[in-house]
């Protein structure tokens, strides 16, 4: 099943030869407002779906709303520093992937309890306040007593205090998209622990910072408010607000024939060079304690790689030639714990060292890797 028109009995199955892509399908539909729901919960597939729609669908005379949810993931803004924004070692242990989106803004945590909404329009019709009004009106239509309102930072606050939605946007050649989150029943303990960096104090960077806020789930104030109910209300309000009468269409973003090129877009979003390599230049200045010895570490990281690495280590603990070998091994490498560990292990095999020195180098490496 690739495409389902939810409020009609029409179904396009895999056995039907598709002559058109999703884009031409929309053109043929002739509707000026279309609501889409993504059939998958993979963050990279969904981000690729956004990019594909933005690049390939004619949005000059048509607007679209895409509703999507993901399995747990952390998503950083285009110009952010993941080492500054989230706890990467914790995410690795929990198996939570990191994604970098193409829009600006801050860092968010997604899981099934979070609804994502992307409003696609022409650049002329780009209007974030109007889009947020769709959400607040939908929520108030469901529960008139709910106190929700958008701020001038384009957040949505519950009871004037708790953030339940954050916004980001991208402006392209002729079209734009504005996407935002909505906290319905997110795991807040995971959210707060992954969004707290373990190394932000040692990083000096000009990357765009997030603005941390206290958060709440809608489910906390009303246990009957589940994600499906909210999504349907938003879809309905979107049609009301903009005067559309289109159907809600479920789309599978892994369907390459329907969206040529989308598979590569999802692959590109998963590349180390995009996720980590696009981090603006930053420096790390840290005092590590290894074996009761204080090691001063100074690194410059450009494009996610160590551009320069210097260490101050007491000469009696580790001779300076060893230290120089160690820092040279790291120069030019990816700022990545696996890569650093592999390089240091390789260098200890090539130089002849006593077991004692090898142990020290091993522990030094563990210390350095702790800031990656």
């Amino acid at each position: 099943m690739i495409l389902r028109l939810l409020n009609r009995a029409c179904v396009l199955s895999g056995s039907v030869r598709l002559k058109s892509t999703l884009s031409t399908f929309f053109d043929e539909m002739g509707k000026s407002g279309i609501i889409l729901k993504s059939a998958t919960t993979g963050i990279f597939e969904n981000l690729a779906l956004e990019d594909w729609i933005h690049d390939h669908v004619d949005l000059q005379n048509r607007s679209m709303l895409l509703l999507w949810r993901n399995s747990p993931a952390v998503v950083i803004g285009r110009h952010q520093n993941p080492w500054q924004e989230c706890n990467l070692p914790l995410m690795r242990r929990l198996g939570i992937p990191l994604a970098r989106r193409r829009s600006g803004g801050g860092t968010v945590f997604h899981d099934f309890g979070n609804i994502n909404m992307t409003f696609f329009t022409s650049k002329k019709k780009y209007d974030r306040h109007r889009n947020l009004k769709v959400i607040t009106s939908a929520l108030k239509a469901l529960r008139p007593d709910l106190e929700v309102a958008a701020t001038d930072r384009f957040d949505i606050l519950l009871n004037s205090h708790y953030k339940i939605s954050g916004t980001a946007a991208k402006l392209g050649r002729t079209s734009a998209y504005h996407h935002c989150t909505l906290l319905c029943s997110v795991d807040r303990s995971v959210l707060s622990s992954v969004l707290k960096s373990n190394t932000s104090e040692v990083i000096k960077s000009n990357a765009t910072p997030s603005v941390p806020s206290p958060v709440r789930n809608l489910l906390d104030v009303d246990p009957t408010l589940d994600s499906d109910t909210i999504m349907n209300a938003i879809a309905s309000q979107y049609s009301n607000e903009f005067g559309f009468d289109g159907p809600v269409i479920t789309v599978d973003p892994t369907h390459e024939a329907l969206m040529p090129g989308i598979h590569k877009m999802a692959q590109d979003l998963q590349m180390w060079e995009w996720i980590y390599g696009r981090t603006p230049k930053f420096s790390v200045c840290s005092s590590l304690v290894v074996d009761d010895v204080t090691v001063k570490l100074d690194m410059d990281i450009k494009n996610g790689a160590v551009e320069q690495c210097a260490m101050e280590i007491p000469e009696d603990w580790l001779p300076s030639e060893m230290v120089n070998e160690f820092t040279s091994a790291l120069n030019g490498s990816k700022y990545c714990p696996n890569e650093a560990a592999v390089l240091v292990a390789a260098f200890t095999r090539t130089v002849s060292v006593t077991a004692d020195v090898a142990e020290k180098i091993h522990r030094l490496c563990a210390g350095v890797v702790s800031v990656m």
Partner: protein
Amino acid sequence: MAMCTILRCASVSLTSSLPRLSNRNALTPARLLSRTCYKRALSTTTRFCAALKFTDKHEWVRVDSGVATVGISNFAQEALGDVVYCGLPEVGTKLSQSDEFGALESVKAASELYSPLTGEVTDVNDALADNPGLVNKSCYKDGWLMKMTVSIPEELDGLMDEAAYERYIKSIED
């Protein structure tokens, strides 16, 4: 902000030879240069002319001795709002005309930047790393974004000159 709009509208109705003294991003020196250039056009190719050319994506290009400096126009920086980050390409990046070469992040959104010409990036404005607001404060001078070679000089002929760009802005604003 409203004051700027009024002044801009007023100035557009004047003949283009009158300098807009009230606009802090005054283009008078460039305009004088372009008039001088025009007189010499018979003996000098346009590639060496330092007049500003504009794209419909609100980027400007100024070519000097074969090197093009690229930035965004006053219209663009006003529309963007305060720029908080400039995502620029690496030196050596090869670009075709209309290729995405970076993005400017402002409170409004992350706005893609499109290359006005085909060429190779030779320099990037490092001052923007610590001071992205230069793009707003001095979009034609200190807020330049990148410099590139001009592989296809004919592409410059397809860009708008200042007068045409002014007319273009007026048409979108209506």
